[in-house]
C-alpha cells in the first residue's frame, strides 16, 4: 500500500468529480478539475520562488476561494502550511513568524503592517502595496505561472501543517499534524457524517480554526460543493444566505447555532435543503439541540468533541441523542478513549478522570516545543502515541463519552480556544490594573475577567479598548468584575478556583 499524501485527496477528487463545483463565493466558481490545475500552477510558482519540501508557508487571510488552493499548493510541493486568522495581532504574528521561519508568507493588502520586519518572500492578495512592489509578488503572478515538474515529497508521518492555538502560557504554539493524521481522521469522520457529492456546505467558520479548515478535506473526499462564507454571516442574514445557496450542511459552533435558532425563530425562512448540522468547538446545550430539531425537522444534528491535537475525539449520531443525552458520543472508529485517575490508572466505566486518546488521529506534538509536547503527548508501552487531553469526564460501559470539565488552564469560548493567562496578561498591561484573573462562567456562557486596580475603577469601555489592542475579538471578556484584591494560592498565583467559587456564590 502506498503512503498517504494530502495531495492524493485532490488528485482523487479531480478524477472522480472533475466537473463538480468544489468552491464558490460571489461570482467565483471553481470545479475540482480546475482546482487541481490551479494548484499545480501555484505549486510551480512556489517552487520558482524557492519554497522547498519541509519549508513553512504562512497564510494570513479571511476565508476566500484562494485560501484552500494556496494550502493545497503548499502541500503539493511538500511544504508545511499554516492558516492564521485575518484578525491576528501584529505581536502574535511576529512570534509565530519567529517560531516558524516561513519561506513564504501570503498576506492581504488590507494588512500591510504585517509586512514589517518579515525576512521571507511575500505574496499579496488584492494587489501588492506600492512600497513593496519592488520585491514582493502578486497572487495573480503566482497563480498564472508556468507549470513545471514537481518533485515528489514525503507523506505518511511527515508533517503536513501546523495549527496555531494558545498554549497554557498564553504564547502561541503550533500543533503538528501529519499527512497520515489527516488521512485517517478524514475517513473516520466521514464514516459518521457521510457527506455526499450532492451536498452544499456553508463554510462560515474561519479556516484558521481547524474545524473550518478540515471541511476542505471532507469536501475533497466526498465531492461536495463548499460555499466560502465568513463568520460575520452568522448574524441576521444567516437563514437567507443558507436558503439562497441551497445549503445542505452547516458545520458550526454553539454561538453560530444560537444565532441560527434566534433568527429562524424570529423571522423564519424555509430551509428545506438543510440536512446536516455539526457542532464542535464547545458543548452544544441539549435545549439548543432540541430547538434545532424542532426548527429543522429534516436536518440531523451531530454533537461532537475534539481538540486540535487529535482533531476529533468523538461524534454522537443523531439517533443516539435521545438515549445518550449530554454525551459527546463514541470515540472515532479505530481509536480509543479512556478516563485516567490522577495516579495514571485507567478508570472503570462511569468513573470521572482525565480523557486520554489513543489512535492514528493523535498528532505529532507541538512545533519546536519539546517540553510542552512531553506534557501532553505520551507513548504507550507498544509505541502508540497517546494524547493527554486536559479535559475531564467519564466513558460509560457503552463507550459513550460524558464531558465534565476542561482543565483550569484552558478556556473554550465562542468556539475559540484561549489561555486565561493571555487575557490576564493583556489586562495587566494597562497601568491601572494591578492583578487579573480570567475564568469562564459555564452556566451563563460568559468570559469573566476579575480585576484589581489602582485608585478609581477605570471605565469599562476604555479598558475594553485597551484589551482590544492586544487580544483578538473572540478573546475579549464579556464581564469585568472588580475586587479589592484577587484571591491567591499558596504560591501567590491568582486562585482561579476561588474566583469560580465567587461566581457560584453569586448564582
Amino acid at each position: 500500500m502506498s503512503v498517504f499524501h494530502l495531495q492524493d485527496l485532490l488528485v482523487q477528487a479531480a478524477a472522480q468529480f472533475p466537473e463538480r463545483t468544489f468552491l464558490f463565493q460571489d461570482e467565483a466558481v471553481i470545479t475540482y478539475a480546475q482546482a487541481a490545475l490551479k494548484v499545480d500552477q501555484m505549486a510551480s510558482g512556489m517552487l520558482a520562488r524557492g519554497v522547498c519540501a519541509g519549508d513553512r508557508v504562512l497564510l494570513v487571510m479571511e476565508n476566500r476561494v484562494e485560501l484552500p488552493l494556496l494550502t493545497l499548493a503548499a502541500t503539493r510541493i511538500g511544504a508545511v502550511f499554516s492558516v492564521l486568522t485575518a484578525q491576528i495581532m501584529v505581536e502574535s504574528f511576529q512570534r509565530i513568524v519567529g517560531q516558524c521561519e516561513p519561506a513564504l508568507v501570503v498576506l492581504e493588502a488590507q494588512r500591510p503592517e504585517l509586512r514589517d520586519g518579515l525576512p521571507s518572500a511575500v505574496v499579496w492578495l488584492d494587489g501588492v502595496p506600492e512600497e513593496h512592489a519592488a520585491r514582493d509578488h502578486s497572487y495573480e503572478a503566482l497563480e498564472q505561472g508556468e507549470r513545471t515538474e514537481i518533485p515528489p515529497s514525503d507523506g505518511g508521518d511527515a508533517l503536513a501543517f501546523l495549527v496555531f492555538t494558545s498554549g497554557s502560557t498564553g504564547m502561541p504554539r503550533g500543533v503538528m499534524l501529519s499527512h497520515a493524521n489527516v488521512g485517517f481522521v478524514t475517513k473516520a469522520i466521514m464514516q459518521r457524517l457521510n457527506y455526499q457529492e450532492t451536498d452544499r456546505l456553508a463554510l462560515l467558520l474561519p479556516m484558521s480554526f481547524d474545524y473550518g479548515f478540515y471541511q476542505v478535506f471532507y469536501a475533497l473526499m466526498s465531492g461536495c460543493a463548499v460555499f466560502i462564507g465568513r463568520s460575520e454571516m452568522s448574524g441576521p442574514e444567516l437563514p437567507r444566505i443558507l436558503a439562497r445557496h441551497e445549503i445542505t450542511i452547516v458545520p458550526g459552533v454553539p454561538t453560530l447555532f444560537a444565532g441560527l435558532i434566534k433568527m429562524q425563530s424570529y423571522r423564519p425562512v424555509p430551509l428545506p435543503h438543510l440536512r446536516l448540522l455539526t457542532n464542535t468547538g464547545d458543548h452544544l446545550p441539549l435545549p439548543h439541540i432540541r430547538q434545532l430539531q424542532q426548527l429543522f425537522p429534516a436536518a440531523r444534528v451531530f454533537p461532537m468533541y475534539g481538540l486540535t491535537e487529535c482533531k476529533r475525539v468523538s461524534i454522537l449520531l443523531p439517533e443516539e441523542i435521545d438515549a445518550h443525552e449530554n454525551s459527546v458520543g463514541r470515540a472515532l472508529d479505530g481509536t480509543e478513549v479512556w478516563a485516567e485517575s490522577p495516579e495514571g490508572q485507567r478508570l472503570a466505566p462511569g468513573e470521572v478522570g482525565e480523557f486520554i486518546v489513543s489512535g492514528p488521529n493523535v498528532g505529532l506534538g507541538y512545533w519546536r516545543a519539546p517540553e510542552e509536547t512531553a506534557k501532553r503527548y505520551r507513548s504507550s508501552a507498544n509505541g502508540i502515541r497517546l494524547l493527554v487531553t486536559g479535559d475531564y469526564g467519564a466513558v460509560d460501559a457503552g463507550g459513550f463519552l460524558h464531558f465534565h470539565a476542561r482543565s483550569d488552564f484552558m478556556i473554550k469560548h465562542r468556539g475559540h480556544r484561549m489561555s486565561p493567562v493571555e487575557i490576564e496578561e493583556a489586562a495587566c498591561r494597562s497601568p491601572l490594573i494591578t492583578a487579573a484573573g480570567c475564568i469562564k462562567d459555564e452556566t451563563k456562557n460568559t468570559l469573566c475577567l476579575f480585576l484589581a486596580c489602582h485608585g478609581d475603577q477605570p471605565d469599562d469601555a476604555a479598558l475594553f479598548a485597551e484589551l482590544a489592542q492586544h487580544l483578538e475579538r473572540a478573546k475579549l471578556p464579556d464581564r469585568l468584575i472588580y475586587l479589592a484584591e484577587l484571591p491567591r494560592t499558596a504560591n501567590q498565583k491568582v486562585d482561579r478556583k476561588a474566583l469560580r467559587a465567587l461566581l457560584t456564590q453569586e448564582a
Partner: protein
Amino acid sequence: MPTIETRLLDLLRPFLRLLPSDQTLAMDAELGKLGLDSLQSIDLLMALEQEFEVQIPDEKITVESFATPAHLLALVS
C-alpha cells in the same frame, strides 16, 4: 421629541462594549470594531424593529446593513 438619529444612537450604545461612555458615536463608525458581533446583530435587529415600529424587509437584512449607524438609519427611516 428626539430625532431618529439620536434614538438610533441611544439604542445602539449598549451593544457597543468597546465604545467608551464619554465618547460620541459617529454615524460612520464601524460597529464591528466597536464590539458588535453577529449574534448581537440579531438582538439589534429585533430592538430596531421594536423601537421604530417597522418591519425591515428581508432583502435589506444583510451583513453590510449592520456596518455603521448610517447604514442602520437607512433601514429604519
